[in-house]
Structure formats: C-alpha cells, structure tokens
C-alpha cells in the first residue's frame, strides 16, 4: 500500500514552475529519501503534502485519502525545515500544545517522545534556552507525537552533532520497525544512503531518478585497474570493450565485475598489479544526476 501517491503534481508561482508534473509513490514501511539541489522544489512538495500550499495541478493521496483532507494531514507527523516553537513555553509545554492542537489526549505521550528524543532532562527549560540541536530533537519529538503512521521530515539532522545524527538514524530505524513510513529530505547524503530504502531525486521541480540508493543514476560499480606502465597500451586495447577512463596511470572501467576485467587482461597476456571494485557513493550518483540534468536544462534553454 502506498502512503504517499502524487500524480502530475505541479506548483507554479507566477511564471516560476517550482514543481513540474511530479509523480511519486511511497510504499508503507519505508524510509524514503527525497533529494535535490537547493531550489529543486523539495520543500514546496513537502508543503503540498502537508496541505500548506495548494497544487496548481495534479493529485495527492496521503494515507489513502485524497488531499485536501485535513484528516490525512492530522495523522502525519512532520517537521519542515528549521522547527519552530513558542519560545516563552518550556519544551514539555510546547509538546503539550502541539499534542492538544492535533486533538491528542494521552498525557503520557509527551513523556514518551521526550524520552525518545533524549530531552527528558531539559523538558522543563524554556525553548529560548535550547541549543539548535535540542530544538531539532524537539522538532522530531513533536513529529512523533501520537505515533503517526507517516512522518515527513525536512532536514531532520540539521544542527545535530555526530552522536545526535547517529541517534536520529537509530530512531528512524525504530520507527520503520514499528510500521511507520518516513519521508525524509536531507542534504546529508551519507546519512540518506545509510537509512533510506528508496530515494527520489528532483531537479528543477521534476523527478529525474528514483530507486534504491545503490541503483540511482548512470554511475555503476567501477573496476579500478593498475598495470605496469609497459603494459598500459595493451591494457587500453583489451579494456576498450567497456567504457574506460585513464586517471593517474590507472584505468577506471565501467563494469561491475572485477573478475571479468581481470580475465580479459590475463587472456591478453597482461598481468594486473591491482584490481579493485569501486562502489560509487550516493553523493557521486547524486552529483552525476544533478550535473547531467543541469546540462540538459542548459541545452534545452539554449
């Protein structure tokens, strides 16, 4: 079952197209990464999902309900960009207010999310005395109030130290283990790579790639081969059956199997000094996709 389903979702602000015909399907129980460079339309999409702004065109279904439907939005926990609070209230009071706004009545729920976010000790402090990291945790705690089946988090690890980031990573894992779905926008691609089951990349408001983090983009696993300089010519000839680049005296072969590459070299009488398989990181894939899309856009515009 899809908890988020968008079809041809479009948002225009005057002549600017912020989101352009976005189709998105997020299945239940996943941690779904939503990536894109600044200004790609991520936050606009999230605001449309939460009913804060109205799409110009297209359809959104959230938790099986077609928006605009406040009931679907009310069952969604969310944190948009930098979390905002009432600075004259304590952390606990802010959460109580948030819970009451959503109709929550369980007094133990605030204590539970404070504990999960590691804020129990500072819950009685006013929020204006909180650090950026504490505010971020409080935002995540607020999003978790009432055990929502869907969490939409925009940059949840902003301002957190490495141990805080690790805790949030664990928390996201726990949430999906409980059956929640997490829709996550983040610039920390290493984090996204570790926690997300699927990732979508948007550029200039359009969905340009979607899938498991390891399958995104055109970059695949590459085989790095080092040979004796005297064998470089022969190696170049033998490896030409694949796309290949030479870099610092080594060959980067666009193929995912090191054994194949080594076999071809050996059959041709070249002994490889080093054969290593490189797994491209999500960051490499992301940059490849966004650079390619930018280039396409420039060509289209010209």
């Amino acid at each position: 079952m899809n908890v988020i389903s968008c079809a041809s979702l479009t948002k225009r602000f005057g002549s600017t197209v912020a989101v352009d015909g976005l189709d998105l399907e997020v299945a239940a129980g996943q941690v779904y990464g939503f990536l894109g460079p600044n200004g790609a339309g991520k936050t606009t999409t999230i605001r449309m999902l939460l009913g804060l702004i109205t799409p110009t065109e297209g359809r959104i279904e959230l938790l099986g309900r077609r928006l605009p439907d406040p009931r679907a939005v009310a069952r969604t926990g969310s944190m948009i960009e930098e979390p905002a609070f009432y600075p004259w209230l304590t952390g606990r009071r802010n959460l109580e207010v948030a819970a009451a706004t959503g109709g929550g009545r369980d007094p133990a729920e605030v204590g539970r999310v404070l504990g999960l976010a590691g804020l129990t000790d500072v819950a009685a402090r006013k929020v204006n005395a909180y650090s950026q990291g504490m505010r971020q945790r409080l935002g995540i705690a607020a999003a978790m109030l009432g055990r929502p089946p869907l969490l939409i988090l925009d940059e949840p690890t902003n301002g957190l130290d490495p141990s805080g980031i690790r805790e949030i990573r664990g928390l996201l894992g726990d949430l999906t283990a409980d059956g929640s779905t997490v829709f996550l926008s983040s610039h920390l691609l290493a984090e996204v790579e570790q926690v997300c089951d699927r990732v979508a990349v948007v550029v200039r408001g359009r969905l340009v790639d979607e899938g498991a983090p390891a399958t995104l983009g055109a970059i695949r696993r590459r085989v790095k081969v080092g040979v004796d300089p005297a064998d470089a010519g022969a190696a170049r000839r033998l490896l030409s059956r694949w796309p290949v680049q030479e870099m610092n005296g080594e060959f980067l072969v666009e193929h995912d199997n090191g054994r194949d590459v080594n076999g071809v070299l050996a059959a041709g009488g070249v002994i490889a000094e080093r054969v290593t398989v490189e797994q491209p990181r999500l960051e490499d894939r992301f940059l490849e996709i966004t650079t390619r899309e930018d280039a396409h856009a420039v060509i289209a515009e010209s």
Partner: protein
Amino acid sequence: MLSLLRAELAKLVRPLVWGSGLAISGFCLLITSGGANNARSALASPKIPSVCDASVTAQCRHVIAAAHASARAAALATSSLAQPGEIGHVVAGMLASVPGLLLIVLIAGGHWGGEWGLRTIRQLLSREGRRSRVLTAKWLTIWSAGVATMLCCWLVLLIAAPLIAASVGLPSAHAALWAGLASSVSAIGRAVLVLGLFAAVATAAGTIARGQLATTAITAGAMLLALLLAGIASIGRLSPASFVQAWMNFGASGYLPTNFWSRFVASGQQLGQVAGLTGIAATAVIAALIARWRFAADVSV
C-alpha cells in the same frame, strides 16, 4: 475543537498578555485616580469668573454658589461612579473603546500575527488542517483574553476605586455601595460584544498581514480609520465606530472618563442600540469572510 482551544489558551500564558493586561489595569487605576483628584480639586476651587473674585454683588454671589453646587454635583457623580456598583461603567467604557482596542491589537499581534513571525503557523496547520477551526480558535482566544482583562480591571477597580475616592476626600456617595450594579453588568455585557468585534477585525487583519507588527498595524489602522470616518458627518453613520458608539451608548464623560470613543464620533451620528448591534454583527461577519478568504491562501513561511 475544545482541544484546539485548550492549546490556544495555553499559548496565551506569556509575558505579552500579562503585560498588556497589567498595563490596561494600571491605566484604569490611573484614570480613576486622576478623575477623583480632578473632581476633588474642582470641589476645592470651583471655576469662578475672575470678575467675581473681589465682587460681592448679588449676581456674583449667585455665580459663585452655582459654581460650588456644580463642583459638588460633579464630585458626587465621580464619587458615585467610583463605587463598586457603578465602576463597571468605567471598566466597560475603557475596554469597549480605544484602550480595549489597543489591548486587542497587542494581543492579536503576538498571538495571531506572531504565528507567522515565529513560523509556528506551519506546525499549527499541519496538525489542524481545518483552517476555519484555527480561525475560530484564534478569534475566541483573542476575545477571551480581552474579556479576561476586562474582568481583572473590574475586580481591581471594585476594590481600588472606592478607596481612591475616599482617600482623595471626595464627598461620599449617598447611594448604596452596590447601587447601579445591574446597569454596570449590562454595560460590561455590551463591552464583551465590542471586544468580540475588535477580536474579529484583528483576526481578519492577521490573515492579511501575516506578521506580528503588520497585524498590529493593520488592526489598529482599520479601527482608527473607522473612528476617523465616524467623525465625518456625511458617512459617519456607516462606520463601525458609530455602531460601537450606538451599541455602548457612550455619553459625555465627567471628571472620571467612561470611554475614549464618543469624542471621535460626529454628533448627530447617533444610531439606535439595535442598529448599533446590527452594524457590529455585520462588521464581524465581513471580517470573518475576509479572514476565511485570506487564510485559504498558501502558507509559505
């Protein structure tokens, strides 16, 4: 809805609201004290024309006697107004006029406009997406803050006003302590409705302004414009300020002012109380429609 109201009321527990309430209560105390002192001074030295200073003519004796009688009557009226039964008129008049408007302006700026300034509006709307409910809750809580302040002022003056009147040496009112209470309660009731109108205008202003200062400015500007219009003979009758004037039936004040409104409304603009009530209701409905229309727009803070 009750849960949402509880949340909105919890947000009102803030220095801005306490401070505004204290300021209004302090202002009412100052006005009462100033009015009582002025009445006492006038009683001690009534306004006598200078030609009668050294004259002992019958005409002057008559003028001097009339001045003393007038000052005594004014002092007695002030003393009566300062009694617990009557002081509600002062409180109602203050809160249903410019001081009450300023209170609502300040509270609405922080409580409603501040949701945009602090960017908490997006959290609020992502928890309660029914925007008409949010508007209703904001209006009711701004209104209730105004009413609560009025009740505090009333309580403060119920105790302090008779003490002030006695301490400055005003002649004691002959009426019973609680005489005029029914009339005071009626005035307070009418002021509650006017505060509801101010809150409705402020709620609508918040949806247009989407910021603390701008909400304050637009609410104050709209009502001050209404007061200015009320002073124009040809169109003044159609101004919301004239509706308030008619509904509250503000009259001329003595030494202890009972409103800061009637002096802005052109004489001859007086409508009946029912017309005033109808006008207030119509203005509130227009404010609600504006708020609903404006609040349906995208929230992109």
